[in-house]
């Protein structure tokens, strides 16, 4: 069943979009990530123009994360205070990111920039996650008592604040910086940033895994709302028909994923997510390296 996307100005198979939405939504519920890092490359792969894929990807991530956030909220797994601090950084970062995106679009390098961002960010994060979680699984086998969290230099910064739910007393500077970085990536890559936020919260901030997923969803919902707004107003690349079709599949998938996620242990979840992130990075890297089928591309004049 073909459906015409009014902003992308093309028609796409609606069932394909529903299917993509379902798969990505399932992962979203399972890992507590929005799934934008899978969605945007998939949309570009099926021929959606990169700016529309990024803008609508952020919008879909918003909707998908709302249902995930509500599931987590009911279980009391959201550290609102930490979420708000991250969010302040996230708003500033996403505003800066949309400016960067608009500039890249004028320079004609959006596709390349999006691909490079994906390869570098996903490659790094995926590798770190796989390494750490495998290490954690091995440590668990050896049954060595682990500390609550490592004390790093970032814990010595000023402006300390108490985050009761996360059982932390740390400076607000690291969460602000993390929020900012995720905001930039969110705008350029059309992702919520959960796949980066989750490891950053665990390894850099030392938050307990139980509140990490809910809190990251909290941040993701509001940052993607901001990205949607800015992309729609500045670039004009949010396709609501595309978003809603992806969401229709996504919300169903997310519920299945969330249910399954409660049965998996933290380390296994992280290892799986890491492997998934790495494979997306690998596929995109291959796309950059192989000789393109088309040596020329046409696009609208900026």
């Amino acid at each position, binding site marked *: 069943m*073909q*459906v*015409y996307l*009014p*902003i992308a*100005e*093309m*028609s796409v198979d609606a069932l394909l979009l529903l299917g993509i939405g379902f798969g990505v939504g399932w992962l979203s519920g399972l890992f507590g990530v929005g799934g934008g890092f899978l969605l945007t490359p998939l949309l570009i792969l099926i021929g959606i123009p990169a700016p529309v894929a990024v803008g609508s990807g952020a*919008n*879909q991530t*918003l*909707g*998908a*994360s*709302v*249902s995930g956030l*509500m*599931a987590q909220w009911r279980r009391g797994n959201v550290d609102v205070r930490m979420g708000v601090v991250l969010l302040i950084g996230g708003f500033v970062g996403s505003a800066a990111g949309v400016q960067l995106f608009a500039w890249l679009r004028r320079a*004609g*390098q959006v*596709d*390349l920039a999006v691909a490079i961002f994906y390869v570098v960010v996903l490659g790094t994060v995926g590798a770190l996650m796989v390494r750490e979680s495998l290490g954690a699984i091995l440590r668990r086998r050896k049954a060595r008592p682990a500390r609550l969290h490592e004390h790093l230099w970032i814990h010595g910064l000023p402006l300390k604040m108490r985050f009761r739910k996360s059982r932390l007393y740390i400076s607000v500077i690291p969460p602000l910086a993390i929020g900012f970085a995720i905001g930039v990536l969110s705008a350029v890559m059309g992702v919520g940033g959960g796949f980066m936020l989750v490891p950053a919260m665990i390894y850099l901030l030392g938050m307990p895994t139980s509140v990490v997923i809910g809190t990251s969803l909290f941040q993701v*919902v509001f940052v993607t*709302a901001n990205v*949607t*707004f*800015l992309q*729609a*107003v500045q670039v*004009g690349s*949010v396709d*609501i*028909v595309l*978003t*809603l079709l992806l*969401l*229709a599949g*996504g*919300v*169903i998938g*997310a*519920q*299945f994923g969330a*249910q399954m996620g409660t049965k998996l242990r933290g380390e296994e979840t992280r290892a799986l997510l890491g492997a998934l992130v790495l494979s997306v990075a690998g596929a995109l890297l291959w796309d*950059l*390296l*192989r*000789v*393109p089928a*088309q*040596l*020329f*591309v*046409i*696009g*609208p*004049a*900026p």
Partner: protein
Amino acid sequence: MRRALRVLLPLVLLLAGLLAAAPLKAQPGATPSLAAELSTRRIEVTTAFTGGEILVFGATDRLIGGDGDEIVVLVTGPPTSLVVRQKIDVLGFWINGPSARFNGIPSYWALAATQPVELMFGPTERTDLRLGLDLLQLPQIGSTGPQFRRALRELKQRQGLWVDQTRPIDVSGGRLFHARLPVPSTVATGVYRVQIMLAREGRVVARQELSLQVERVGTAASIAYVARDLPVLYALSAILLAAFAGWLGSVLFRRG
């Protein structure tokens, strides 16, 4: 048979009308030897739009083909500006390299004829009339080199937006002709100019010009309109709709 009727019926009406109007429209020195019409003056782009076609039909007063008259149909869509980028290999990575900009080129262009136009016209006439994709004026800004122009033609043809005589015009009964020009779903909205030319002995002896409107209607039109003219409202609705859909989903499909 049914298709023939569908084509013929409006034609008969048209011819009747034309006969009545003929004295008023008569060209100096000759009776109008060509009459053509479009099956529709409006292509509606709805949310279910998957592409369509422009159907041009008409009749001549002399026999088409053989040593007689030939028909050429040329459709030009609203002008657009495009950038063609060449991918280059930088340290093993394929990135967008030099680019050329083409301003004021037709977003849609389609040519059909009863015979290949190369056989119908001499090179000078064909160039004057710009009949052929190779003769289309493509003013190039930025990087120079014929490869950009070649790539533009090839990619536009692949998208189905530039159609160069992929199907000949059908002729029935020697005098009636109809041409079907495919329109893909990526077609731009705006006014399309349809030129119908009657060629005889390498020259155009009669021509008629019609126009066609491609426009978004229904939901697709409202969405595109709101997104363009009221971006803030559109952005807020996109956020609320997505959030609402997410919330609705978590309520409807709550498990356990």
